């Protein structure tokens, strides 16, 4: 093909008119945003489901110790990378909110269409964790501070601390105690036992144990604080990952 000819525009000009340019740029900006959204959705979702998925899938995995530790740390990776791109390149404080919104759209479609629609688990067993208020928090800290360092420290800690409280309004009812056949358990456990899965056995389910407990009733604050600490470190690393993946470097063909 050698369609390297120009038809209809003034010699050497890209655009025929300002109207053509503006119409094209506005449309194409929107399409680029949709592209970014869909790619972030796909890559964040595969990352999140294979690093924190089991705690996110099932109500009986949403415990006080492992879930609030693992889920925020894993979610922080893409939030930081996305902030790095949108803030550094465009001064848009929307990176974290955008990427968690993308993840949640992918998750909700899946939980309804596949977990419920194909394998018939009830939605109150499989609804995903809430993350959007954490995205707001991280973006607001970045917008106000204008500093990724402050966002890592203040935003990262808040990211971990916020996770359990924002999920609590939905989760609380499932942590009600129940006694079934002389065994004390939560409603979440009971729902899980009624829908037997390959992840049901207690030697597989990674949740807090009643034995060898160090923190007594204060499990959640300790887990959330630890999660916030690791989230800070993850933020540093993944902010730079986001920068690295924003590279505009070219390789010579001989190098490849």
């Amino acid at each position, binding site marked *: *093909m050698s369609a390297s000819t120009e038809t209809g525009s003034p010699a050497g000009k890209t655009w025929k008119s300002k109207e053509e340019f503006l119409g094209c740029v506005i449309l194409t900006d929107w399409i680029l945003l949709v592209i970014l959204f869909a790619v972030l959705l796909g890559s964040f979702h595969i990352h999140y489901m294979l690093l924190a998925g089991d705690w996110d899938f099932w109500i009986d995995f949403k415990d006080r110790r492992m879930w609030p530790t693992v889920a925020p740390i894993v979610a922080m990776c893409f939030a930081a990378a996305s902030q790095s*791109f949108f803030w550094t390149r465009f001064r848009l404080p929307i990176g974290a909110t955008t990427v968690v919104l993308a993840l949640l759209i992918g998750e909700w479609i899946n939980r309804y269409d596949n977990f419920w629609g194909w394998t018939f688990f009830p939605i109150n067993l499989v609804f995903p964790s809430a993350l959007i208020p954490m995205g707001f928090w991280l973006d607001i800290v970045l917008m106000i501070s204008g500093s990724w360092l402050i966002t890592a420290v203040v935003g990262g800690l808040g990211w971990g601390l916020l996770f359990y409280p924002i999920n609590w309004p939905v989760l609380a009812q499932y942590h009600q105690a129940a006694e079934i056949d002389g065994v004390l358990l939560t409603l979440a456990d009971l729902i899980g036992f009624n829908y037997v899965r390959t992840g049901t056995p207690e030697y597989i389910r990674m949740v807090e144990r009643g034995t060898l407990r160090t923190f007594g009733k204060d499990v959640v604050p300790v887990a959330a604080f630890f999660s916030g600490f690791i989230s800070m470190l993850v933020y540093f690393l993944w902010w730079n990952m986001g920068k690295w993946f924003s590279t505009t470097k070219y390789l010579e063909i001989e*190098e490849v």
Partner: protein
Amino acid sequence: MNLTTEKAAGVARAGEVDTIVNYKPAYITMGVMLVFYVGIRIYEQYFGWKAGLDSFAPEFQTYWMNLMWTELPLEFVAFCGIGGYLWKTRDRNIDAVAPREEMRRILTLIGWLAVYAFSVYWGASYFTEQDGTWHQTVIRDTDFTPSHILEFYLSYPIYIICGWGAFMYAHTRIPQFAKRISLAFLMFFAGPFMIFPNIGLNEWGHTFWFMEELFTAPLHWGFVFFGWFALAVFGVARQVLDRVIELSKEYEKDALAL
């Protein structure tokens, strides 16, 4: 939406419009993909339970293995065909591309990227998490489960083909991507592509260990690692936008005033 201008003032003859942007082929492709995936999902709904539980049963061969042995060769042909066509019809005079033609090709590339992004959603999000719920429900007796036949061997090859098409289109028609290899574009295509060979590791591992019980099992982390490379869409977006700005210098102030 098409933005078209007439080639000659006062004369609007058929076939003589100078279209700078036409996303209709991308919209149609995504529409076809959507209809196809909804159709295949309905097939799965019915035949997953009816014929997908026992891989030694004759109906499993009929409804699932035949599907796999049909889709894999078609995907291979599509991969070679698209790459071969784009290479065969490449611009052999890439240094002579006029600015308006270059812009037209950049916008066509964005259409390719939109199709790629849409296919990444289906593969990486929809069908991958769907596989998790199937494994939680049905103990498998084969690597080729109904969900794998649609996930690993259908939706993944389809996004690879779309990414390959986008990469080859850029490499054969757009000067900035033709003379050198964009590191970001290479990662954006090659990272998600590597998820497909990683299935080899995954299924090899599952041959020895039943680990479906935990979707977060370390054996699955290869998918995560290669999935990260899709973040190179950041670099690709920057490279495309940088060139659009360079080609549109005369209207820079108008764009900033938006």
